[in-house]
């Protein structure tokens, strides 16, 4: 069974970074404990879909291991910033779900008007659900401290950023 195999692989991957997977027999969905995106629960299948989408769409800039571009705190010669890591060494976890969603869908200019950046807008390339899956995957890699911090930022974001 393909689905079972995927989930099995995801469980191995997830337990390797240390968090529990909660089996929800009544919905037949495997919800990831302690993880949500824009208030919606996240399933193991979402994360594995997100992982594949990340590899295809984001890894070329943000790194296969979410490590970002080399020397990412230093500007490129064109004045733009390199792609930052999406793991806990970067600043992605400081942004609310809503902010991450808008940045991914619309580019950085969608949250900072007039800002020039090499981050593409994924509107028309990924669906809203796919964007949510990629970002859920990114969130699933964070240690507890970063996930708690980001959960709080998300709760406080009234959607104005």
């Amino acid at each position, binding site marked *: 069974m393909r689905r079972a195999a995927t989930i099995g692989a995801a469980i191995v991957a997830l337990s390797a970074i240390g968090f529990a997977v909660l089996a929800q027999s009544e919905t037949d969905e495997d919800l990831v404990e302690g993880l949500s995106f824009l208030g919606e629960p996240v399933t193991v299948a979402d994360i594995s879909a997100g992982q594949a989408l990340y590899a295809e769409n984001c890894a070329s800039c943000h790194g296969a291991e979410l490590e970002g571009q080399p020397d990412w*705190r*230093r500007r490129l010669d064109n004045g733009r910033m390199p792609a930052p890591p999406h793991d806990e060494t970067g600043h992605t976890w400081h*942004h609310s779900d809503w902010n991450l969603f808008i940045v991914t869908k619309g580019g950085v200019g969608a949250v900072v*008007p007039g800002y020039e950046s090499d981050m593409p807008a994924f509107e028309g390339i990924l669906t809203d659900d796919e964007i949510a899956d990629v970002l859920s995957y990114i969130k699933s890699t964070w240690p507890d401290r970063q996930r708690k911090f*980001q959960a709080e*930022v998300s709760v*406080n974001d009234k959607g104005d*950023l």
Partner: protein
Amino acid sequence: MTNSTLNFEPDRRHFLALGMGAAAVLVLPGAVRAADRAADIRTLAFDGDTLLIAGATLRASLDGGRSWQERPTPSPVSSIATHPARPGRLLAGLARGGVAVSGDGGSSWTTRSDGLASGEVTALAVAAGNPDMIYAAIRGDGLWKSEDAGATWALAMDRPWLDAAERDPLTLVSVDLDTGMGGIWIYAGTEKGLTRVPDCFCRWQDVQPGNAMDALAAGDAPPAEAPLPADEPVLSLASALTAPSKLYAALPSGVWASQDGGVVWTHKAEGQGRAIALHPRDENHVAAILNGALKLSRDGGATWIALAIA
């Protein structure tokens, strides 16, 4: 500098750093002496009620500017920073590079530059909500941060990009206003104006009205803005710890103030502004270097008195 200037001030080593004309000194020694002392000042700070003025030298006044005590400096100071939760602790960004800290109001100093890039520290700030979090801007390099009051340093962010080039922060201030990213803002003045970065260091950006995105989304008229004059450097910034949306700025055109975190600015005083500081417990108690003189306002910049630096 010339021998005749030195004759007037044999006790003042820092005179060597000044480029004042000897002729003026001969005509008006007393006035020029006071003006020199102010011209020498690059930075102001309050350590509680103590007013500190620093540049090639450091002076402290415990009585609102009536009398001054000279204190040692490790080397010429470009920027001085304090925090009310650490009375007597001064942090100095040094013009020849490095950061020094004093725990006794400036009587003694130790350097704290482990891991910090070399080069002039153009600006220094303490995080409003964390007295051990220090930010330093290094000329030609970037913004560095220390989470342990200067003991260790790490690069936080490159310099801001304004008008097609990287610009040195000439002044930095931690502004205790929510970024919506779980932290607060750091504002910087540059030769090309004002900019700011969230303390997670994701990106430098213009100061925008908090509700600009809402207005954009709703198709409403954008909120009112009255930015600082373009084409003027922002030389010094101060934020009121007691009222964080209240900011002051010193520019070549004078002293400016904002009540809303830097969206709308009003001109508070004319003259060549150089440095500005706010009392930690009174946002209307402002010290500034204006037209080469030290000035004090107790009413938020409406009226000013000149202080002699003796």
